[in-house]
């Protein structure tokens, strides 16, 4: 900004033509797409996420076995042409369960992260914009929630509400709220000092309009990047709660629950453990790589 003010003869900006914003927008999009393609991490991550998304959407329709279909004659059968990932202790097809599990994990991740983004961003907006006692109150709530190790707080919440997939989703959403809230607050604190916000205030624009049409769109990028990274965390947390018996309940094919159900067969039927675990790992890896890539492209400051 200071560089602009010290310029001796600022060049007058040309009068924008009607179609100019469109060209600018297109070139911006094009530039963004090129940076995206340049980032190996983003491309590989997006590839993995896309594959898992396709598996979750169309995978279950292509399966020969249902995820809860019991074949009593082939309990703990090793991987074969018929059962690609083998069968579990009840004779259910592990491949069918892993594929169906993708839906659950992605749904939990989506619900938990979008829920925490909405609540966290709203609280962060209010705290950052209005400041004073509201900021102190909201920031203290964030501090208190962050004082608990994430999964521990989720366990406490599920212990209150009772074990179920729905309650696990709520718990994961709650524990992620302060991450987005703090991020949004710090962005709002910076953006509200910008000239365009001061100008909007000066012409008497209402707070609600300033918040949602000026501040929010200009604070959105780091939230999206963090959202991708937190998606990975949410998937792991949901699987962790499922593993402890606090998330999805039988016969839901949730990956964490599948691991805890077949723990005792680890020696005799390791395939019951290997594939659900790999599924969790690849999903988390995909979102982590995509999040890292997006962060480098969109907001390199966050890396610090």
């Amino acid at each position, binding site marked *: 900004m200071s560089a602009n003010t010290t310029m001796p003869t600022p060049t007058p900006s040309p009068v924008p033509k009607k179609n100019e914003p469109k060209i600018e927008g297109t070139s911006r999009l094009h530039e963004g797409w090129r940076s995206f393609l340049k980032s190996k991490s983003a491309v590989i991550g997006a590839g993995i996420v896309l594959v898992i998304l396709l598996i979750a959407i169309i995978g279950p329709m292509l399966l020969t076995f249902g995820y809860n279909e019991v074949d009593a004659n082939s309990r703990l059968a090793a991987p074969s042409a018929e059962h690609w990932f083998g069968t579990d202790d009840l004779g259910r097809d592990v491949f069918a369960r892993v594929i169906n599990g993708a839906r659950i994990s992605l749904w939990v991740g989506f619900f938990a992260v979008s829920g925490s983004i909405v609540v966290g961003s709203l609280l962060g907006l209010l705290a950052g914009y209005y400041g004073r006692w509201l900021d102190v109150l909201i920031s*203290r*709530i964030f*501090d*208190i929630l962050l*004082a*608990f*190790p*994430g*999964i*521990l*707080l989720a*366990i*406490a919440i599920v*212990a*209150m*509400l*009772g074990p179920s997939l729905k309650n696990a989703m709520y718990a994961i959403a709650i524990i992620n709220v302060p991450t987005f809230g703090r991020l949004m607050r710090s962005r709002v604190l910076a953006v509200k000092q910008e000239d365009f916000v001061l100008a909007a205030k000066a012409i008497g624009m209402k707070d609600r309009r300033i918040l949602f049409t000026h501040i929010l769109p200009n604070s959105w990028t780091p939230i999206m990047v963090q959202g991708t990274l937190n998606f*990975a965390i949410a998937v*792991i947390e949901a*699987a*962790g709660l499922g*593993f*402890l*018996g*606090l998330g999805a309940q039988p016969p839901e094919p949730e990956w*964490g629950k599948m*691991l805890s159900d077949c*723990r005792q067969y*680890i*020696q005799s039927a*390791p395939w019951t*453990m*290997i594939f*659900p*675990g790999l599924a*969790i*790992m*690849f999903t*988390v*890896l995909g979102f*982590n*790589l995509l999040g*890292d890539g997006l962060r480098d492209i969109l907001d390199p400051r966050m*890396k*610090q």
Partner: protein
Amino acid sequence: MLIPVLIGMSIITFSIVHAIPGDPAKAILGEKATPEAVAQLKESMGLGKPLFIQYVDYVKGILSGDLGTSFITKTSVAEEIGPYLAATMELSFAAMVIAVFFGMNLGILAAWRHNTGVDYTAMVIAIIGVSVPVFWLGLMEQWVFAQDLSWLPSNGRIDARMGFEPITNFYFIDALIQGDFVAFGDAFRHIILPAVALGTIPMAYIARMTRSSMLEVMRSDYIRTVRAKGVSEFLIIYKHTLRNAFIPILTVFGLQMGLLLGGAILTETIFSWPGIGRYVYEAINNRDYPVIQSGILIIAFIFVMINLIVDLLYAWIDPRIQYGKE
């Protein structure tokens, strides 16, 4: 700042019982409980009193060291929690040693050999390490190293047949005090698998942070000057660069302690490690609410204290940081 956080923590743990949908006493005792038993439990827990009075009683109890009485063992939580706490602290410490040692050296190696095969390999290890679920890693370790290869024990802190009598409940210290090196070795063999499982994710985060932090410092003028003076590469990295790259690494260390303490619940469950995580997990299964409340409160309290210590360490490592001065 610490006081409001501690008050907030106590409100959350207090709410664990009071936010149970329906009648908490009925939920604790189960569907088949008689009305007399429910009334008795309500009386003993003071559930009939106004909520604020109950909270004040709860806080008074905590401050006087009364963490409640377990419904299952009928023993005071404050009395029985000690050995569990020691077991978790021992495991977390071992995991952090692994995470810091391997994480920092992996990060240093990657920064030192920036943009080479070594750097890429180290970062692939780190990104996979961040993505692997701790409970799955633990199970795979058990399968490969304990059951298939029979190299290491898969459960517990020490072989029960040794008849080891702990003094402080920190087995390594106790074994050394007693001069029992066989027990020391056995405790060491028992801690390897759970500590590696628990330390992997923090290790990966520390590696990534060390690399980026080291790269930033290595580009600075004073490192170029030190290099021009002919100082050995080892000293440049471990003496001159690492110290200035340490603040971000320390921040990650503080944050990772939370991950470690949270991860301890899962790791301890898998490896039958008799720590506070398993203690809380079993309490959840038994609906032993005083144990759940106190266990969670203590873990959160430790986490807050560790972060406070980390904040104080900042100033010790970097004298430019001063608290309480403008």
